[in-house]
C-alpha cells in the first residue's frame, strides 16, 4: 500500500536519472516515454485502489502521523495523479519529435521528469511543509525547462517567471511558519482539527490570506497572473503544453486542498474574496486573450480565464460547485495541453505562431484542422464535449444558490472564448497563407507525423469520451467533492482511528 503511494513520485525520479545518463544517446527520449507509461500504469492502479477503498494514506519512514511525513490520496489527489501521468505520456511522445538533440543533451528529459515528480509529490503529500518542498522541486525544474535553449525572449520571460514565483515562495514559507507557531503541527489532517481549537480565529484568517496570495501566484489568479502570459509563449511547445496543463493546476489544487481542509472557519470572508477573484480572473483573462494576435499568447491568456472557473467552484463552496471544479480541472488539463501541442504542429508547418503570418491550414492540413476543432470547441463549451459539461455544472451550481451575477460572468466569458477560438480558426486555418504557401503535414518526416499527431489525437479522443459519456466522470467528481467537503474520511485515513486524541 505505502509503495503504491510513493511510486508515482519515485518513478519519474528514476526516469530522470536514467534520462540524464542516456542524454548523449537516442535512448533518452524512449526512457522518458517508457517512464511516463509506467507512471500512467501505476497511477491507474492507485486510482483503482482509491475508488475501491476510499482515502488511502501511508506514513513514510515508519513514523506515525502527525510526526512523520504522510502521503495520502483521496479522490481529488488520485485523479490529478492520473491526469498528470496522461499529460506526461502525451508530452513525452510529442517531445521525442520536437525537442532538438542539443536540448536533449542539455537535460530536457531529465528536467521534465523531475517536474512530473514534483507535480505528483504536490498532489500526494499530506504535509504542508512537504508541499512546500514539492513546489520547489517543481519550480526549479520548470525554471530550467523555461530557459532551456537560451533565446532572448526565454531569458526575459525567465526573469519574470522566476521573480514572481520566488515572491510567492516567501509568502508560502511565512504562512507555514505562522501556522506552525499557532498550532504546533504541519500535518494537514492534524491541522484541520487543530485550527478548530484556536482561540485567535482572526489571526488564522490573516494566515489564510497569506496562503491565498502564495497559491494565487502559482495558480495565476487575478491580480497576480501577469507572469503567465509573459512567459508561456517563449519555451518549446512541449514545455508550454506541460506548463499549461499542470503547473497552474497545482496551485489550484493547493487552494482547493487548503480552503476545504484547513481554512474553513471563516468561509463568509475567505470564500467571498475567492468569488470576486474568480470572476475577475475569468474576465481579465478572456479580455486579455481577445487583444492578442499570437496563437500561443491567446492560449496563455485563456489559461488565466479558465483558472477562474475552477476557483469559482471552490468559492461557491457547495457540493455541486466543488464537483464542477474537479470536473473542470480534469477537462482543462486535457484540452489546454492539447491546444498547445497543436499550436506547435501549426508552427512547424506554417513557420510562425503570429496569426497574421499563418493560414491555409484547413485546406492543406485538414487532419490538423479537425484535431484543433475538438479541443477548441471543448474549451469554449460546445456540447457534447467535456467543456460543455464542466461549464454547465458550474453555472448550474451558481444558479442553485442564486449567484446570478457569477453565473452571468461565467456565461459571458464562455461567449468571449468562442470569439478567440474563431479568431484563431479564421486566421490560421481558414484564410489562405499570406505567402501563398500551402502548409502541409507532408513536410514532416513520417516519424514526426506519428509522434506529433498521436498524442494530440489521443487527448482529443479523451475529451470526446468525457463529453459523450459524462456520467461516470460526474459521479466520481461528486464523490471527490464529497470527500473535500467532509474531511473526516481524510483525517481518519491519515491519523488512524484515534481521532482528536493524537495531539
Amino acid at each position, binding site marked *: 500500500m505505502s509503495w503504491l503511494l510513493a511510486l508515482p513520485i519515485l518513478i519519474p525520479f528514476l526516469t530522470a536519472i536514467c534520462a540524464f545518463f542516456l542524454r548523449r544517446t537516442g535512448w533518452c527520449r524512449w526512457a522518458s516515454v517508457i517512464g511516463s507509461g509506467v507512471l500512467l500504469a501505476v497511477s491507474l492502479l492507485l486510482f483503482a485502489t482509491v475508488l475501491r477503498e476510499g482515502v488511502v494514506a501511508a506514513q513514510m519512514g515508519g513514523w506515525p502521523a502527525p510526526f512523520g511525513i504522510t502521503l495520502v490520496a483521496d479522490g481529488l489527489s488520485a485523479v490529478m495523479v492520473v491526469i498528470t501521468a496522461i499529460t506526461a505520456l502525451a508530452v513525452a511522445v510529442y517531445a521525442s519529435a520536437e525537442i532538438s538533440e542539443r536540448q536533449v543533451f542539455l537535460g530536457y528529459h531529465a528536467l521534465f521528469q523531475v517536474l512530473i515528480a514534483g507535480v505528483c509529490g504536490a498532489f500526494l503529500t499530506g504535509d504542508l511543509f512537504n508541499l512546500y518542498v514539492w513546489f520547489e522541486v517543481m519550480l526549479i525544474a520548470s525554471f530550467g525547462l523555461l530557459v532551456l535553449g537560451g533565446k532572448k525572449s526565454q*531569458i*526575459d520571460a525567465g526573469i519574470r517567471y522566476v521573480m514572481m514565483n520566488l515572491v510567492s515562495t*516567501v509568502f508560502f*514559507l511565512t504562512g507555514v*511558519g*505562522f501556522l506552525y507557531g499557532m498550532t504546533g503541527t504541519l500535518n494537514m489532517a492534524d491541522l484541520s482539527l487543530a485550527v478548530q481549537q484556536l482561540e485567535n480565529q482572526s489571526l488564522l484568517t490573516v494566515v489564510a490570506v497569506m496562503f491565498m496570495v502564495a497559491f494565487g501566484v502559482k495558480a495565476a489568479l487575478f491580480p497576480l497572473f501577469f507572469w503567465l502570459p509573459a512567459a508561456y509563449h517563449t519555451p518549446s511547445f512541449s514545455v508550454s503544453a506541460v506548463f499549461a496543463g499542470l503547473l497552474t493546476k497545482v496551485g489550484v489544487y493547493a487552494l482547493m486542498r487548503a480552503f476545504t481542509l484547513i481554512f474553513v472557519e471563516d468561509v463568509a470572508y475567505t470564500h467571498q474574496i475567492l468569488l470576486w477573484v474568480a470572476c475577475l480572473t475569468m474576465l481579465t483573462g478572456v479580455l486579455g486573450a481577445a487583444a492578442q*494576435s499570437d496563437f500561443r499568447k491567446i492560449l496563455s491568456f485563456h489559461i488565466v480565464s479558465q483558472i477562474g472557473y475552477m476557483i469559482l467552484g471552490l468559492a461557491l463552496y457547495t457540493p455541486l460547485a466543488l464537483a464542477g471544479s474537479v470536473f473542470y480541472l480534469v477537462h482543462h488539463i486535457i484540452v489546454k495541453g492539447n491546444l498547445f501541442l497543436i499550436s506547435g504542429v501549426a508552427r512547424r508547418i506554417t513557420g510562425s505562431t503570429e496569426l497574421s503570418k499563418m493560414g491555409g491550414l484547413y485546406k492543406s492540413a485538414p487532419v490538423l484542422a479537425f484535431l484543433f476543432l475538438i479541443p477548441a470547441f471543448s474549451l469554449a463549451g460546445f456540447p457534447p464535449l467535456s467543456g460543455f459539461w464542466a461549464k454547465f455544472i458550474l453555472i448550474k451550481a451558481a444558479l442553485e444558490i442564486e449567484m446570478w451575477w457569477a453565473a452571468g460572468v461565467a456565461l459571458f466569458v464562455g461567449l468571449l472564448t468562442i470569439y478567440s477560438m474563431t479568431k484563431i480558426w479564421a486566421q490560421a486555418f481558414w484564410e489562405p497563407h499570406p505567402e501563398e504557401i500551402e502548409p502541409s503535414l507532408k513536410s514532416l518526416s513520417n516519424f514526426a507525423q506519428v509522434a506529433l499527431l498521436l498524442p494530440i489525437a489521443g487527448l482529443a479522443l479523451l475529451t470526446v469520451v468525457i463529453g459523450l459519456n459524462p456520467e461516470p466522470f460526474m459521479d466520481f467528481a461528486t464523490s471527490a467533492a464529497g470527500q473535500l467537503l467532509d474531511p473526516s474520511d481524510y483525517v481518519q485515513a491519515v491519523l488512524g482511528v484515534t481521532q482528536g486524541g493524537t495531539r
Partner: protein
Amino acid sequence: MEFLLAITIGVMVAAAVYLMLARNVLRFIFGLILISNAANLAIFTAGRLTPGAPPLIKEGAYAPAEGVANALPQALVLTAIVIGFGLFAFALVLVYRAYTTLGTLYSDEMDAAEPKGPAQ
C-alpha cells in the same frame, strides 16, 4: 528575545520591500534574499524561543529527557535555507545571463518576450 527578533524581522522585511521596489533586477534579487531570510527567522521565532537543553536522546532511551528545545523549526529553517540557496543561485545566474544577452538590468527595458508597441 521574541520582541527583539520581531523588530529585526520587521526591519529586514522593510529593507527588502524597499529593495524589491527598484527597477534594477539585481536589487530585486537582493531584496528577495533578504526577505526570504526574514521568513526563515519568522519560522524560527514562531517555533518558540526556549532556553532548553539540546534535543539529544541518551543511549538506550527512547525519548529525550524533559525540558529539551524544539528541534523541528530549526529543521524546517535548514530545509528552507538549502532550497533557497539553490533557487537564488539559479536566479543570480539568470540575472547575469539576462545582463549579457539583453544588455540591461532594468526591468522596464527588458521587452524581448513582450515587445512594446501596438499589436499587429
